[in-house]
Each structure stands twice: as C-alpha cells, then as structure tokens.
C-alpha cells in the first residue's frame, strides 16, 4: 500500500513523439484512480512508467516518500494487468497464479493457500490444473487478474483489463474488482477509455488527452463540473451538448444568441457573463438535463426530432433546429421522427466555456 506521486512526468518516444506531457498526479493511498482518455492519450504510457516498463524522459515517480524513478519493475513491487491477457504459456493455471509468489520465495504451503483463495474469488478454482494457454479469453483474463491479486503490492495497475472479455464477463469482473478493492483497501490505478467503467469503479478520475492531464477529481465532480469541453464531451453517454453562442445584453438581462435560437439567462449572477458581452462562448448542457415537452411551454424552443435511439429504458433523441443539433436523453416514451418538440434549458444545469480556450467559465 502506498501513495503514488507523479511529478512533472514527461515521456517522449524516439525524441519526437510526445506521449505524456508534464503530468503531475497524486494517487492517494488506498485510492482507486482511473486514468481515462481516448486511445493514444498517454494513459497506458503513464501506467507503464509507474510500473517501470518505460523510463520517463523527465520527471519523477514516488511511492510514498521513496523515489522509484530509476528502479526496475521487479524492484518496485507493483502488480500489473495488461490490456491483452498475458499468461505464461506452458504453465498450468496454478503455476501462472503462483508465479509472482515464487519470485518472492513464499513457502509452498502459503502459495497453495493463497492461490486457492484467489482462484475462488475469480471462480477459476476448477481449472487450476489445466494448461493456461488453452483457456478462452475471458477465463485467461481471470487467471491474469488472479495472478495480480494473489499478492499485496504497493499499487495495482490495471490497463484496460476488461476490454478483451465478453460483455457478460465484463460486468461480472467489474463487480469482483470493485469488491476486491474496497475489501483489500489497496491503491489501484485503472486505465480505461470507457467512461462508464471509470464512473462506476473509481474514487477519482484523471481525464487525459494528448498526453496532458485535463481534470482530476471525483466522478461527480468530473461529471458535473467538467473543466473544459473535452472532459464534458468525453464523460457521459452521450457526451455533453455544446452550442456556440455570442453573449448579448437585452433589457438588462443576458441573452445567449446561438443564431438559430436564443437562450435567456435572467437569474444568473450577471457579473460573469457581462464580461463576455460581445464575445463567443460555448454553452454546455448534458443530454439528460434537457427538458423535452410535447407542447409549447414558456421559455421553451421548438426543435425537430431527427433520430431516436433507444438505450435501455431511455431514449436518446437527436433534435435539430436550423444548423444546430442537440442530443437529449429522456425516459422511454412515444417519439416519432419529424415530430416537433419544445426544449427547455434548465438554468441550473447550464455550463459555460470560453469560446477560445474551451476552458470552463467559473460562475
């Protein structure tokens, strides 16, 4: 168990490709932090640097107060799950799981006890004597996870551990992981590009893009108060709606002019928007926060329904007015194409982003 601290971590591949850019991040002891971002955002590279598989170009890595930047992986006492299950071919499942314990010269009896324990947790006790490489992908990933959790390292590193397994196993393993983490109370870093996985599992989420840390906070924080449009777009399913507007002043209250429609913001403390009068800003609102009415209500804007996607007991409705397209996520109901609906933007859910920097504007 340890706190992990990354200080100004930078990785440049072959002197050209900037994979991770001055990343500073504190992963609290016993915390489950998710590194979230699209493919190629540097999250896996960050993970590999924590594991010691990549040497940072600049910056330092600390476990608690000990600097480990120059330690090789085998001396760091970390456990890692790779994206594609790495099993040791030719070894049985038991030998695979016991492998890290053997490295640490754990007595045989103890090894047997711990392997059986962890095999039960992952439901693979019945295949312990089989050769690991003949198993299917899902079971193999379970073997790999068992091999990871058979010991108590400073930190668990999981690199998209559930992408290579089928959806039903994924849900099952996600539950097992969550339970394990709260039960063991161990530091864990979880790399994923699946925002819903991050939101369900993590205590804190670090959203990355193009090698940079964009936001670091609790799932609620990242979800409710995205620091910039990228985080807003990447978190949530579907992501946040963005509408480019210019700020105008009309009869003492603020109006956001999106050309195709206008949104009044009367009650908001006017001070901050007044600074933006005449400038471009981006209005953001989550699809699930849009209000849809079948009939005209005051303050609502009429939109046309152009696409309806059922998602479980919800509908994702694509709405169009002029050039602008919005997505709304609403409870399942009758909704037909080309239907006219009225959309209200509840003020409390509106987010504002600077039109140039794309950073959030603090209200």
């Amino acid at each position, binding site marked *: 168990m340890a706190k992990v601290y990354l200080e100004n971590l930078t990785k440049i591949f072959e002197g050209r490709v900037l994979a991770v850019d001055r990343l500073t991040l504190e992963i609290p002891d016993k915390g489950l932090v998710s590194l979230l971002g699209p493919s190629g955002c540097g999250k896996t590279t960050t993970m590999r640097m924590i594991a010691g*598989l990549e040497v940072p170009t600049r910056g330092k890595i600390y476990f608690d107060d000990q600097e480990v930047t120059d330690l*090789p992986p*085998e001396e760091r006492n970390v456990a890692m799950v790779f994206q594609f299950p*790495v099993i*040791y071919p*030719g070894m049985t499942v038991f030998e695979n799981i016991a492998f890290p314990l053997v*490295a640490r010269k754990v007595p045989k009896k103890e090894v047997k006890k711990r392997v059986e324990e962890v095999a039960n947790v992952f439901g693979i006790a019945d295949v312990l004597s089989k050769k690991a490489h003949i198993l299917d992908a899902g079971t193999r990933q379970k073997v790999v996870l068992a091999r990871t959790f058979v010991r108590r390292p400073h930190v668990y590193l999981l690199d998209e551990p559930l992408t290579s397994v089928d959806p039903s196993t994924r849900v099952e393993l996600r539950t097992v992981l969550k339970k394990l983490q709260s039960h063991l109370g161990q530091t864990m870093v979880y790399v994923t590009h699946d925002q819903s996985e991050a939101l369900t599992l993590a205590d804190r989420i670090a959203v990355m893009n193009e090698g940079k840390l964009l936001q670091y906070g609790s799932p609620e924080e990242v979800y409710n108060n995205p620091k910039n449009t990228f985080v807003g777009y990447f978190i949530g399913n579907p992501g946040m709606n963005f509408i480019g507007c210019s700020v105008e002043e009309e009869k003492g209250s603020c109006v956001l002019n999106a050309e195709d429609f206008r949104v009044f913001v009367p009650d908001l403390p006017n001070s901050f928007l007044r600074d933006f009068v005449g400038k471009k800003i981006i209005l953001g609102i989550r699809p699930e926060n849009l209000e849809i009415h079948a009939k005209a209500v005051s303050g609502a804007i009429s939109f046309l329904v152009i696409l309806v996607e059922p998602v479980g007991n919800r509908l994702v409705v694509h709405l169009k007015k002029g050039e602008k397209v919005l997505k709304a996520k609403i409870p399942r109901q009758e909704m037909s194409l080309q239907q006219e609906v009225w959309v209200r933007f509840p003020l409390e859910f509106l987010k504002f982003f600077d039109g140039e920097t794309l950073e959030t504007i603090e209200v």
Partner: protein
Amino acid sequence: MRRKINWGKGVGIGGLILYGIFILFPIYWTFNTSFKEIGDVYKVPPSFVPTRFILDAYRFIFQGTGRIALLNSLVVAAISTAIAVVLGTMASYAYSRYPFTPLTNEGAQFNLLTVRMFPPIAFLLPIFWMWKRFGLLDTYFALIITYTAFNLPLAVWLLKGFMDALPRSIEEASYVDGYSFWQTIRRIVLPLIGSGLAATVALCWIFIWNEFIIAYLLGGRNVILYTAYLPSLRRGMRIMWNQIAALSVLAIIPSIIILVLFRKYLVKIYLRS
C-alpha cells in the same frame, strides 16, 4: 463400400515403400559391408545378407586413428554447436528486441545472411591463409572458430524467428511479477523457445558433422576429423570399403540420436520456413 479399394492411397503407400527402399538401401548396404572381410567386399555376386559377423573393420577403426578422428569430430562439433547456440540465442534476442541499433537493424540482419549465400569454399582460401599466418592451422581452436563462424548466422536467423514469435508483454509481465532480466530469460524466454533451441542445436550439429572441406583444409594431421579421415582408408590401390563402411556406421549413430531426439522440433522449423 468397405470392399472398395482406395487406389490413390494404395499408389501412395506403394510409392512411399519404394522411396523408403531407395533411401534405406545404401544405409543397409553400408551396414552389410562393414561386417565383411575386404576380400568378400569385391566378390561378385555380393552377399546381400551378412553370413558371418566379422568385426575386423570395427576393430581397425577402434584401435587406430579412426577412434581419434571420431572423438575429434565429437569434440569439435559439440563445442562449436554450443558456442553457436549460446551466442546465437543472445544475438537473436538483441536482433529481435532492439531492431533499431546500427548493429541490429535491417541492413545488419541482411549481412548475417550473406555469409550463408556464398559457398563455403569462397571464404576458405583466405581463412586457410589467416590460420596459417597465425600458426593455428590444424588446431581445435581454428576448426571450432571456423565452424562457429559458419553456424552462428544460421543459429541467429533460426532463433530470431522464435524470439519474434514471443510477445514482448510476456517478458514485461514477468518483470512486474518480480523477476529480473536474467531470471526472465531463464524462466520464461528459454523454455518458450525450447523447440527452437533444439532445432538449432540439431542443424548446427549436422552441418559440422557432415562437413568435409573445412575439416580437410584446416585440419588433417594433428586434429583429424572423421570426414577428413575417411578418404585415407585404403591400402595401396585397394580401397578398404569394409573399414569405410564401419566408420560410416559409427558416424551415423550421433546423427540418428539427434534426429530422433529433436525430430518434432525439426519438423516445426521446416514447416515455419
């Protein structure tokens, strides 16, 4: 249905039997000849089955230079194969894992192959003069180094294929699991390329064991290998076929042992290429 004769299969099996006879008969004939007296060898018509097992030829080989030549061959082949496989394993790991350094990039890998593209005789004269200048002609050292030089590229090339097939992430997982580089090589990499190692050992061994020109040019007096000794088995104008046959039978034994032991892996490597 059951009565129907499968002609295709019949012809196939018949062909294989003929082929088998074609391949095995010379070996049998060597075996047969090795138990004859020299007088019987030249008899017409020859006896197809040994009637008496006369061990004179074997006795001659065992008591004379033949034994030394066989032992020399064993020593040279074993040491040279060992060096080629050990160095080849290390080099192939480098070629496979770090393919961008000046020593291991594509050009360097191609250079490896060129040694094998020319017939050995093309290099042999300069090599001969080199050892002569060093005063090392006719020594174990010269023979072992020369054979190793010819076998090493082959070993590297064969093993690199096996190394390439081994995912890097397996090694990385092993490091994270607490094993050092050398422990990982020993516990993960070597067992997983085991079949490659076996095949490489077999091929390197066979090359040396069957080789004549190098043995003849670089050795011959102090260090005589059995291939170089074979042609000297005559008395006056008479070729001692029974002694040659006896030496050949003895020489076949190590190759057969290796082939039988490593058969599985050799098939694999031929299928791969």
